């Protein structure tokens, strides 16, 4: 007996297949290893143009779409040649380069030449008069790029720059864009980048993220993953669930958000010390903090370890000086202040301060709120009443600027770092008062050491200058260093991610299978 295939059979079949697919899909995505992966970013991609990028999340994509003369080796801050066959520092202010031939830009924009290098660097460092370049300071002291031949050129500076290679040539501001493409696409270049790097952007959608595909024309080391989907997920809880369900393969989370994922089969937690730095600062211009004894008393009244336990579940390393251990010039012998209530009280008495009421400004995030609450309790014991002023990002980041900044008492703040001491130190010079030097700390000696170390090409001398600068910061007692944080990388156990130590700069093109 035969059974004719009717409409009902067809619908049942379709429904069954759809259901089977629906049930099976997440499981499929969780199985590996694969050649396509999905990673999470917590800020939306906005501008994929090196000259107008909005932050490291844009930079991480730009660095694998565009080549640099030199780039960091996988999982290292050390540089190796990328688009250049040779880079030579011929004098403290002149760097010569020679490009590798046949490095082709995507979308048929032709071969990379020294003209493109000149255009790329000068549009950031020497913008047109009416233009405001966000990253102009990256190319500080650039007087121009001279083109010698199709592949050769010279970068000429007005003054030596110690960090030119680490934070400029090897970073996003050193990315080589296609002159013709930028001129042709104008504003669209921000969302339709043209590059010669290991990946190309095949889709970019607001609030969703981007999809990167291996660039077949790339002449360098072939990336392992054929496709990388970068998903913008702002919520840590959603990230947790997407990692569990197998829809996401990689995310960087705070230690407390990552901890519950430790027991999930197939996932790995990899804790990496960060180069972001967090501290409690005091406005030295405002009473009672204008008296150094009050600042010293506060430093002694606080217990940094207790604050870190509250803020980071004890998973963040303590920082005792400005520069984290990974950075050149880290002051290893910096004093580790222990809580001493008696001494704090006597310093306050000597300063004639009793029952002081102060405000502690923080960003409205759990880690800072928890640390602020501990600080409040600890300072209460020495007779200082703290009101915690928790602000959302937009308001918070403007609190220390201009005349408004004069009213700030104390604050907890976090800055992102780079693998360069001067990049980290730059926010504490007197010129930054009213901008990012919220302590309003004015030290001509610090300024001088900063300027000296910025141009010092001798590493040993530079290290010493940077340490001396940190000693001045310690002497001011305007800073209570808290932590350089820990980033927890959560990923499938078959992925081996790569990033410049500190994990602000990821190296998608060097990710491989474990």
């Amino acid at each position, binding site marked *: 007996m035969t059974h004719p295939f009717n409409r009902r059979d067809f619908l049942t079949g379709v429904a069954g297949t759809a259901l089977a697919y629906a049930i099976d899909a997440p499981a499929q995505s969780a199985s590996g290893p694969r050649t396509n992966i999905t990673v999470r970013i917590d800020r939306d991609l906005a501008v994929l143009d090196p000259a107008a990028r909005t932050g490291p999340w844009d930079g991480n994509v730009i660095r694998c779409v565009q080549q640099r003369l030199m780039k960091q080796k996988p999982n290292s801050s050390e540089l190796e040649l990328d688009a250049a066959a040779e880079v030579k520092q011929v004098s403290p202010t002149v760097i010569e380069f020679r490009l590798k031939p046949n490095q082709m830009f995507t979308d048929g924009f032709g071969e990379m030449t020294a003209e493109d290098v000149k255009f790329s660097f000068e549009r950031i460092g020497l913008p047109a008069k009416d233009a405001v370049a966000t990253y102009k300071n990256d190319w500080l002291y650039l007087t121009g790029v001279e083109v010698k031949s199709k592949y050769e050129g010279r970068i000429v500076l007005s003054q030596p720059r110690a960090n030119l290679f680490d934070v400029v040539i090897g970073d996003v501001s050193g990315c080589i864009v296609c002159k013709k493409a930028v001129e042709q696409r104008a504003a669209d270049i*921000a969302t339709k980048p043209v590059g010669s790097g290991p990946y190309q952007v095949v889709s970019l959608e607001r*609030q969703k993220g981007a*999809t990167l595909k291996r660039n077949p024309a790339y002449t360098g080391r072939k990336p392992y993953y054929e496709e990388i989907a970068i998903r913008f997920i702002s919520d840590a809880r959603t990230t947790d669930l997407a990692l569990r369900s197998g829809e996401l393969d990689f995310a960087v989370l705070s230690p407390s958000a990552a901890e519950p994922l430790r027991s999930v089969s197939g996932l790995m937690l990899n804790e990496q010390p960060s180069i972001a730095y967090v501290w409690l600062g005091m406005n030295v211009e405002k009473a009672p903090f204008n008296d150094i004894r009050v600042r010293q008393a506060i430093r002694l009244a606080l217990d940094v370890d207790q604050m870190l336990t509250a803020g980071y579940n004890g998973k963040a390393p303590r920082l005792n000086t400005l520069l984290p251990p990974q950075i050149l010039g880290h002051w290893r012998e910096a004093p580790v202040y222990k809580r001493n209530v008696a001494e704090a009280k006597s310093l306050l008495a000597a300063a004639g301060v009793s029952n002081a009421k102060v405000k502690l400004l923080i960003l409205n995030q759990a880690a800072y709120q928890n640390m602020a609450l501990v600080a409040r309790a600890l300072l209460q014991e020495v007779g200082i009443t703290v009101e915690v002023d928790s602000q959302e990002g937009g308001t918070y980041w403007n609190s220390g600027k201009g005349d408004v900044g004069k009213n700030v008492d104390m604050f907890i703040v976090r800055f992102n770092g780079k693998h360069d001491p001067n990049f980290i130190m730059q926010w504490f010079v007197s010129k930054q008062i009213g901008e990012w030097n919220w302590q309003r700390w004015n030290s001509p000696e610090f300024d001088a050491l900063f300027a000296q170390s910025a141009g010092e090409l001798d590493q040993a001398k530079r290290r010493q200058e940077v340490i001396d600068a940190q000693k001045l910061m310690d002497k001011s007692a305007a800073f209570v260093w808290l932590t350089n944080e820990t980033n927890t990388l959560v990923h499938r156990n078959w992925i081996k991610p790569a990033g410049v130590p500190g994990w602000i700069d990821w190296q998608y093109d060097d990710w491989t299978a474990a």
Partner: protein
Amino acid sequence: MVAGRSARADETLRYLSSRLVTTVLIVIGAMLLLFTLSSIVPGDPATTLFGPQATPELSRRFITEMGLDQPVLVRLWRFFSNVAVGNLGVDVISGRPVTSLIREVIPYTLILTFTALGFAALVGIPLGIYAATHRGSALDNGLAFVSVAFIAVPSFVVAILLLLVFSIWLDWLPVLGASRTGALGDEIKRMILPTLALALGWIGFIARLIRTSMLEVMNEPYIRTSRAYGLSRCLVTYKYALKNACIPTITLLGLGIGRLLGNAVLVEIVFARPGLGRLIYNAISERNYPIVQGAALVVVVLFVVVNLIVDMSYSAIDPRIRHGAARAGARA
């Protein structure tokens, strides 16, 4: 007859004109409030986004580009002058037109909101009818409890619970609410949980409202008369009673659009789904006012237009309103 129809048309036209004026006033009022707030709230996109990298020149440039250095009324005038030619401004960060950003995300929000509302009506109305026609039954009491529970629980809590059950424990549906590939089947699958999260509270609302309205209508003399004439219970309930009981629900659905758009922000964040709400939320965090203004205008217009449609639909559903309007027109 012809005179009556013409009077009705005049009345409708007058009504539409007055609503249009109200709509314009609402939009101007809402934008005035928004512009005033943006002048008071501290912060600029450069500082918020770039942090220490933001130079004073860059902050100033953003402030100038957004017109924040101008008086509120000047900004408002410029904004509406641009809107009149279809220009909602430019995103100061990416340099892209705000209209194109809105165009990219608005389908997500509209599909989510209207699917959720449709789903809520589809489930809520039969539940409400059942509860009304089986008053005092175990199911009626159970539905009352469930409805209140659905109303009381915020949609983002429902969203997380749904994710835990359907994505993690049962592994049936994806966590992320938007497809990477854009394939229709995948998009539909990824919409199920966000829709449910948004709709559940409304199912409760609609069910309670329909139940109450139905009970009220069922006691009306015309229902008794219809039954006395021998019309079937089913016909009376579903054709005559339900039609009238639906009117308050339609009002609720109109007003609900605003609330749903608000709740959609949280659902969009939890499911990492693009949408108008998330666009506004992120833009506020970044102090990217051109996006906030453009997107807020779209939301206000959307809300007002939906409510206008709802108002207009009354007369189509309820002949008493239609005839009342005609009589008023004839008297005039």
